[in-house]
């Protein structure tokens, strides 16, 4: 009996051992087989200025001497790989028709790599350069109209973000180089409340409310703790600007540590199906952003022209001394301006995040466009910033009809320089503001 038991144990142990070996062999086999063969592979990425985005679902074919060797489709990470029978020269072809809308080869001629040579045991990388191409196969009207809508959407985001910068400049004379980072702060806070694993996971439209309040509060805190004391010490304009640069680094890289460098979309509205209106193809969120922004900006306009506080704001922006002597509490007006301006920038950030993705330097990239908008409209005027924002947004997107997409931000610089040469006070500014 004990003998039998021992034998059973022994057999059992041996069978477990054998099974383990067999299991390992099964796992290891494809690895071994893999390493012995040659492959051609690569990663498809759409590169748009500084942004990279994996392109999935693109068909790639490898041929040799006119015969198809293999086909593959790029996966979610844009990766694709095709095993080939051995060392030699192959033709690698990208099926242009399988590219998604808005992605195209940067050089349309290079859809085929005619001589990809693979050495023995090599995993050869074949590269196709993809960029944001124009949507192919649609009517001119659709192209122009769609770009116009995208331009309006970008303009809406710029306009929201610009009003604060312009108003703060109006009441304090400071050009705040950290303003773009308030935009990022808004987008990232909304991410925290809506989509992050440590947050409450609210819908983005609800998460936007605490995010905007947070940025508005941060704006007020900045004014009370930093800018007001500096003004009291009568620090010069140049010094203030350099301080704002320092602050922008603190906020931006603080966000990078907290949020990491990966761009991430919100949980809601990240992917939407195209819709067709009046012959234009667009996504519903673009129209929603435009409509919502126009409403908010109209309310801001009413606030500035119809309420006592808004009028006081414009009075301080016009002439602070005169406003003070007519009984306006200038300090309080400046504080309110900071709170409102930062809150609007935060809202702009949420819109930007919904429209694209949330990224640690999104606001810093937007800052150039914000500057172009406020200078076009007139530094210090709220309505100028709104107008400038829409004009800059539309001009940038529409410019891609005639110039390469990579240069679309350069259009903003063009607008900036032309305005400074022709009418430095901006479209709605008055002459004495340029000093």
């Amino acid at each position: 009996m004990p003998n039998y038991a021992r034998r059973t144990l022994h057999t059992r142990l041996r069978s477990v051992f054998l099974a383990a070996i067999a299991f390992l062999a099964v796992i290891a086999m494809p690895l071994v087989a893999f390493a012995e063969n040659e492959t051609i592979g690569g990663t498809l990425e759409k590169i748009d200025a500084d942004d990279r985005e994996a392109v999935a679902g693109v068909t790639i074919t490898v041929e040799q001497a006119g015969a198809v060797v293999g086909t593959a489709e790029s996966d979610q990470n844009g990766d694709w790989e095709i095993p080939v029978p051995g060392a030699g020269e192959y033709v690698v072809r990208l099926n242009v028709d399988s590219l998604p809308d808005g992605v195209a080869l940067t050089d349309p001629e290079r859809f085929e790599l005619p001589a990809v040579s693979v050495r023995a045991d090599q995993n050869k990388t074949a590269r196709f350069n993809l960029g944001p191409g124009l949507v192919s196969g649609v009517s001119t009207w659709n192209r122009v109209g769609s770009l116009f809508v995208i331009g309006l959407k970008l303009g809406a985001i710029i306009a929201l973000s610009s009003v604060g910068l312009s108003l703060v400049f109006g009441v304090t004379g400071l050009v705040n180089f950290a303003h773009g980072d308030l935009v990022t702060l808004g987008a990232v806070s909304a991410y925290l409340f809506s989509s992050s694993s440590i947050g409450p996971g609210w819908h983005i439209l609800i998460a936007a409310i605490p995010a905007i309040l947070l940025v508005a509060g941060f704006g007020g805190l900045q004014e009370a703790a930093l800018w007001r004391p500096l003004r009291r010490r009568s620090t010069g304009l140049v010094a203030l600007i350099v301080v704002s640069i320092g602050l922008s680094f603190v906020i931006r890289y603080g966000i990078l540590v907290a949020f990491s460098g990966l761009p991430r979309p919100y949980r809601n509205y990240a992917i939407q199906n195209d819709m067709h209106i009046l012959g234009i193809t667009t996504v519903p969120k673009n129209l929603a952003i435009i409509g919502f922004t126009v409403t908010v900006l109209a309310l801001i306009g009413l606030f500035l022209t119809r309420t006592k506080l808004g009028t006081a704001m414009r009075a301080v922006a016009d002439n602070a001394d005169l406003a003070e002597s007519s009984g306006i509490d200038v300090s309080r007006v400046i504080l309110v301006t900071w709170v409102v301006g930062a809150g609007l920038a935060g809202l702009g950030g949420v819109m930007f995040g919904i429209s694209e993705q949330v990224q640690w330097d999104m606001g810093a990239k937007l800052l150039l466009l914000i500057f172009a908008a406020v200078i076009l409209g007139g530094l210090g005027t709220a309505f100028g910033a709104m107008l400038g924002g829409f004009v800059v947004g539309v001009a940038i997107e529409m410019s891609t009809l005639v110039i390469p997409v990579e240069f679309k931000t350069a259009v903003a610089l063009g607008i900036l320089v032309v305005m400074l040469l022709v009418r430095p006070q901006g479209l709605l500014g008055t002459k004495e503001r340029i000093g």
Partner: protein
Amino acid sequence: MDWLKILIDAGRAAVGVPAAAYALSAMGLNLQFGYTGLLNFGHVASMMVGAYGMAITVDRGGSLWLGVVVGIILALILGLLLGIPTLRLRADYLAIVTIAAGEILRLIVRSSWAEPLTKGILGIQSFADEFHDLNPIPVGLYGLGRFRFDERTVWVMMLGWGLVTVVALFMWKLTRSPWGRTIRAIREDEDAALSLGKNVFGYKLQSLMVGGAIGALAGMFLAIDQQNVTPDTYIPLLTFYAFTVVILGGPGTLLGPITGSMIFWFLFKLLDGFMTDAILNGWFFGWFEATDIGPIRFALFGMGLMWLMIFRPQGLFGSHEEMLIDGQ
């Protein structure tokens, strides 16, 4: 935590290649910002134009020395183009246009349109062999203990500090000339200078161009050391390194940029070494990873810049009399 190692590494940085490069770069910015009061936030553009001008010339078959001339000429043209629309306006307009121009220029250099010339994102490599081949220093390590440099680094350092000396002498002559007195007068009171019949716009333009040419020298020097130019090196951050160096050393002083650069790189490397060790030893309770060191360093750098500008705008050792950056 090996304090000695961290201190020595910081000391190496303070006399090494980056310190020399930023001393040069900051001397150019000092002429614009410290002496003339111009708020040039696109200084990195002159560095890039200089480095690319040189690299492309060599890449197209020219000699390195021709490349240096091309780089300087391009930087002078850049200063002219940036100055004309902005120098009649207030300081903040120049700041906005220059920071924008620097970024746009970087986008153009990395675009596929400019790729035949600039080689796109990958950039141009190995263009300074002519300089490195001239190295007369025998192979070996020079210095004491850990504080040592190889023959290549010593050769590059000699070039760097040599350039710093030459430019410092040039600046010494320049700022003591009538021209130098005029630009300082413009910094103190533009209207007063204007009322004395000085062509304020012209002086500012010249200062912007000459400062840019010195910045281009710094860019070329860095490129020669690294044997590599890529567009994404030239981000706006470099401009603000130079700003911090100028303010650290004292704006509008001759030797300020040099001491400023040495202090800056010493502190920078000290912080780097300290944080690397601290994270390895788990001093931050695992809140941060090694990849966070870069961003934390930049955030602290921002705080340092704010602190300096608020409390020591005349530099760490400067007196408050000479320097009052105001910009109306």
